[in-house]
């Protein structure tokens, strides 16, 4: 518990946390679908 408290109160901790959040958001966005193209069915005739 003391060890955890030591990490959390470390002055650099918030920056590392910010980095981890950035990475998490990026990985989340990697799975998102941004396509906006209209559906187009090619007419063979």
């Amino acid at each position, binding site marked *: 518990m003391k060890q955890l408290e030591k990490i959390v109160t470390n002055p650099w901790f*918030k*920056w*590392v946390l910010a*980095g981890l959040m*950035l*990475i998490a958001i990026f990985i989340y*966005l*990697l799975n998102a679908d941004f396509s906006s193209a209209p559906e*187009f069915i090619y007419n*063979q005739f």
Partner: protein
Amino acid sequence: MKKLLIGILIPVVMFGAVVLGLNVNYAARIRQNAGKMLYENNSKERNNSITALKEIYQADAMPVFGSSELFSMFGPGYPSNLFHYGNSDFNMILYGQGGMQSLEHAIALAALADHMPDGKVVLIVSPQWFTVDSVSPDAFASCFSERMYKGFVTNPHISYDTKRWIADRAEAILKEADPAQYDRVCLYDQVYLEKSVDPAKFLNVVGWDMLQDTQTKRKTAIWGETLENTATEPAVKAAEIDYAELLKQSQVEGEAACTNNRFYIEDSYYDLYIASKVELMENSSEGVSYQESPEYWDLELFLKVCKETGIQPLIVNVPVHGSWYDYIGFDREGCRVYYQKIRDLCRTYDAAILDFSEKEYEPYFLKDIMHLGWKGWVYLDEGVYRFSQNPGTVIEYPFTLHATVEVGEAETGNETATETGAEAENEATQEAGLEAGTEVTQEAGLEAVTEVGTEAAPGKTTVSVHITDHLSDVQNVFLETGGYRWELTEDEEGFLCGSISIEEDADAVLAKLQEGILHGDGRFGAGVNAKVEINVEESK
């Protein structure tokens, strides 16, 4: 202050390291599976990924751009069938889909040109693109690849004018069909083309680009791992492919597949699209033509990109379906104008052309009313392979010829008289039936008449060659056939001709003369390689 800067640097470095690591990982996985992607031409995961195509182009492969015909997987000539899904020393990498036309091909080529080691590309041009409206906005938006657009707009070898021209066309079409994509394209144009210094726009583009690039690589890497190796045995040696035999097989398969109509259209296509309304369609296209279309501008853009990136293009001029177009009353004179416009564009941009316009009425060339079919693919395969084997040359004269052999009486024993005698009327004309595969000669027809006359001394033969079609702007021309070589010069009327004496019997010479290759120096230092079918006239 120093602590704050270090603090900000920590998440940036962490984030950068993860993004870099992911990209390296995805690229390695794509590289590992690139061989399995060769003939996955209907997958957006492959076609949107510059990384994947870059890996695929490393192999001995010819990029072939096209549209819906790439999905006409009919017959032994379809590239994946012919090259055993990649188990070959030569492959065609098909790129395109239904609705994809010249403008998108120009964008893709601009993005991929630097990754094409052979510096060559093939574009299969469909007449149906050249309508008054040209490409449909929905089709354009649906096929649009933002990764390719980014590659295009950042290619340093393309001039500002060409980029602006393409960008204007793309913006105009997307504005209507896909506003969100339009906004992103405008942002790319402002940052990379107009060099906007607005930091907000720059960060927006860089951030979005990084996300989309990683996303595309990830999709491609995951998809690539699901593929199975479809290559089949035995290994194909492209130089040993027998195209004449393939044409025979194609004929047989075509006959079996087209049984319920008089247009040589594949049965299921005819049943699905035509049978119920065939009577209504008679003369239904009167007044419709391909003479005027914005697509000509787009094709010119493709050729401009080729020129500026140093890529040598081969344009495949696919014909309309002759008997069907007659039936629906389509403007046939307009078709001839269309063919000529394509030839003129190729000439202007020094592009090679594989001109199939004479094949409008050849059964089984197309599989339906517009897509390449059994024979069409075989002709195309042969032409593309020849194109790939001629480094630094421009093939300008494609067309089909037929050979005849004429056997006549010998008139004299000396060379000069033999030539004269050979020009006299000959008897006993035999059709040799040497139909060529894909011919590479002049649109109007390049035909060589070889006259063989025995001289007085037995076992000695004089062979004179006379090219019966005009070839303009070609110098240092020679013809090779049967292991013989003729230096050709222009006669008084401007036709190419030449004569050699051979220490062999006329029969032995005749047996070797089938078709030849004409070589010469064309315009702007470009080489000319034309396939010539030979009509042999023998004088004894």
